[in-house]
């Protein structure tokens, strides 16, 4: 197979999906920046007390030492091989996969363990892109970083896995944590009515692609009265849904790290403000979960839960505006 074809398969080029995603979001950001330059200035210098990332002082897990007997599925098959930022053969990843039951448990049981591990132990934050092994080593990352780690851990164990990417629309609680923290981002999202990018994972189990979203840390749910995500559950039914088309690449484009690092360099204050808001919510969640059984909470909340999408209060107004 030619290298170009292989790279195309692996999703290494910014294809039409990426182009469309950027084309419908970046002009809006530029427009806001031109019309409201103060927002950009403030976003850059503001929120000095906010952290640049939410790396935990002490990881809530230990990465076992890699041992030579640990099997690695070095297949060159689609969805099993290494892709950009997704390094399934890296020793830490392999060792952690063993710890989580790779090659011992059934594919479903293992993937579910990975799902629980990432949602329970890796902290969500707003930081530049990382490889799967970096995300594991540092214990934090964006939704895409956490997703890359999920995919890497699946591939190591011989389970096909891929990205499920889209421009999302979240429930009001998510909007309040992530978007209202910084006026620039809020204005941008209000303008678009969706955010640029979100990723859920898909793992091929028992002949079927199972959707799983590892971006929602469990401790984010109770303060916001949203259900705890389950393995195999489409988040679109609960708290985040595609606003535009979905695409399911095998990997991320090679320029992804460079382009996605740019906003963190240009709008450092924005990242800090969002991280501060995430941390507050995290702390509230941790406190609540000290006195609450997660399963009980989930059961209770699902009894009446109906997602309130961030624009639901304004949906009627939006429809009216369009007429």
């Amino acid at each position, binding site marked *: 197979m030619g290298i170009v074809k292989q790279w195309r398969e692996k999703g290494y080029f910014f294809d039409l999906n990426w182009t469309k995603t950027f084309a419908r979001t970046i002009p809006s950001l530029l427009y806001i920046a031109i019309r409201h330059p103060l927002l950009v200035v403030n976003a850059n210098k503001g929120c000095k007390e906010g952290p640049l990332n939410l790396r935990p002082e002490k990881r809530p897990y230990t990465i076992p030492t890699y041992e030579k007997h640990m099997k690695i599925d070095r297949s060159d098959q689609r969805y099993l091989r290494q892709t950009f930022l997704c390094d399934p053969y890296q020793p830490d990843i392999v060792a952690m996969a063993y710890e989580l039951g790779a090659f011992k448990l059934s594919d479903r049981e293992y993937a579910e363990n990975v799902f629980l591990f990432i949602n329970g132990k890796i902290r969500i934050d707003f930081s530049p892109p990382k490889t799967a092994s970096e995300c594991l080593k540092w214990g934090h990352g964006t939704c895409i970083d956490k997703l890359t780690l999920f995919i890497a851990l699946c591939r190591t164990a011989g389970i096909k896995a891929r990205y499920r990417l889209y421009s999302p629309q979240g429930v009001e609680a998510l909007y309040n944590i992530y978007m209202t923290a910084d006026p620039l981002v809020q204005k941008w999202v209000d303008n678009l009515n969706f955010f640029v990018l979100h990723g859920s994972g898909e793992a091929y189990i028992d002949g079927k692609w199972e959707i799983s979203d590892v971006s929602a840390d469990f401790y984010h749910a109770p303060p916001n009265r949203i259900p705890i995500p389950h393995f195999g559950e489409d988040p679109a039914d609960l708290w985040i849904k595609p606003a535009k088309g979905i695409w399911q690449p095998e990997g991320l484009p090679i320029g992804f790290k460079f382009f996605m690092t740019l906003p963190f360099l240009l709008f450092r204050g924005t990242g800090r403000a969002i991280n501060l808001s995430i941390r507050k919510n995290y702390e509230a969640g941790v406190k609540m979960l000290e006195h609450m059984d997660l399963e009980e909470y989930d059961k209770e909340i699902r009894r009446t*839960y109906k997602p*309130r999408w961030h624009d639901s*209060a304004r949906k009627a107004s939006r429809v009216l505006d369009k007429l």
Partner: protein
Amino acid sequence: MIRSEKSPLWERTQKLFGRPKEQWTTIDHMIYGSDDYFRIPIDTVKEMRLKAIKESLHHHYENSRFYHQLCKDYSFQPSDIQTMDDLERIPMLPDTFFKEYPSEHPKDVYEWLKKISTVDVGVYDFKGKDLQEFLRWAEKRLDGLVNHSSGTTGHYSFMFRDKITFHRFYYAVIKTLLTIPPELDDDPHYIYPGSPNTFLTIGKWLGEGAKVFSPANRHFLTNREISMTIARLMSTGHAKNFKEKLVLKALKKAMIKGEQTLLELLKDIDSKKQQAVIISPPFQLYSLMMHMKQQGIQLDLGDTNSVVFTGGGWKIFEDRKVPQSEFAKLVHETLGIPEKYYVDVYGMSEMNGLGVSCEGGYKHIHPWIHPMVLDDNEGTIGYGGWGRFAFLDPVAHSYPGYIITGDRVKLLKRCPLCDREGSVLESDITRMAGAEAKGCANLMRGLMAEELTKVHGRKGV
């Protein structure tokens, strides 16, 4: 009770707000064809309400471009509604939606109204820039009822009812309220301690309702016009210039003077042994009753089967709430009207129905209103839990009456105290956290607060 359909009051109600039987739909059968709204068997209510809501949904879906598009955005079609359980899928509007007109220029309000209205508002031939005048024009055009909120937040909320909505709503309200007195005279007195000359919701509603009483027996605190500017001035309490200060002062003076005049009127009605129907925001009646108590005035209006209705918000003191039972006791002590003939009414400008309190203070909701209590994520809580009040109102013909409010309520399946059918709201209705203050009745409260404090001190009775 309107026991005799030959009563002049009843005849006027029929004449003003009746609808030809051949035009009745299910909701009209509920409103015009029921003897007692709160005694219809619950199974019949459920069946008729579901049918009425389905009919209303089809009407708005087919005739409102806006609502049609909203349904499409929710991937919803009226045919999705088959059973009562499906009702929570109906796309709803937040009550704040009705204040999202682009500007206060009449033409802009017209364009907005044209988009949201399910009925045709015709071409724009209004000449002028005054919004109050535009509302008069729109009311005439719709042949209905137009009203606005106090504008506390800087924006008024506008409700435009066409003739069908207006007539259904008024017939139902008048029928409900006039069946409460044990006997109804042919020509009772109607007393509202406010101004009917306004588009402000409470004044407008009570001014229009007064029309079923004979002109000589309609009594108001003042006939001075409460314009939109004055309403907003009253709601904020901040006069921006000397002229506005003068307006506020004059209004306050008129209200204090009017209160004394009303008291004299009540004494006169009492001495002549005539019947009075008093309807007021709790604050104003409380002020009047405190004056009576201070002056040692006691009337016996109960002897003539007089009744008292309150509505429009229970904020009497900033720092203390007067319980409804205490209020009822005061009504008895000062006006001589038995506690059971004092009724508090829960309503809002977007809803074409009421919650009528029983002796236990529970608010009995009109049977055509499908009440819901929602949690923070708009999931239905059902009975017994506190949450956000929402409702489906099939009476609304000129706008989709599927509204999420800012009121915090608790819904009970049936009244724990009386034997009337249907669900009830607990009396302790407040605003949800974050929801803006509402209740145009409170405008006067702000204005009269100082006066009330002078009469009986900060602590009240």
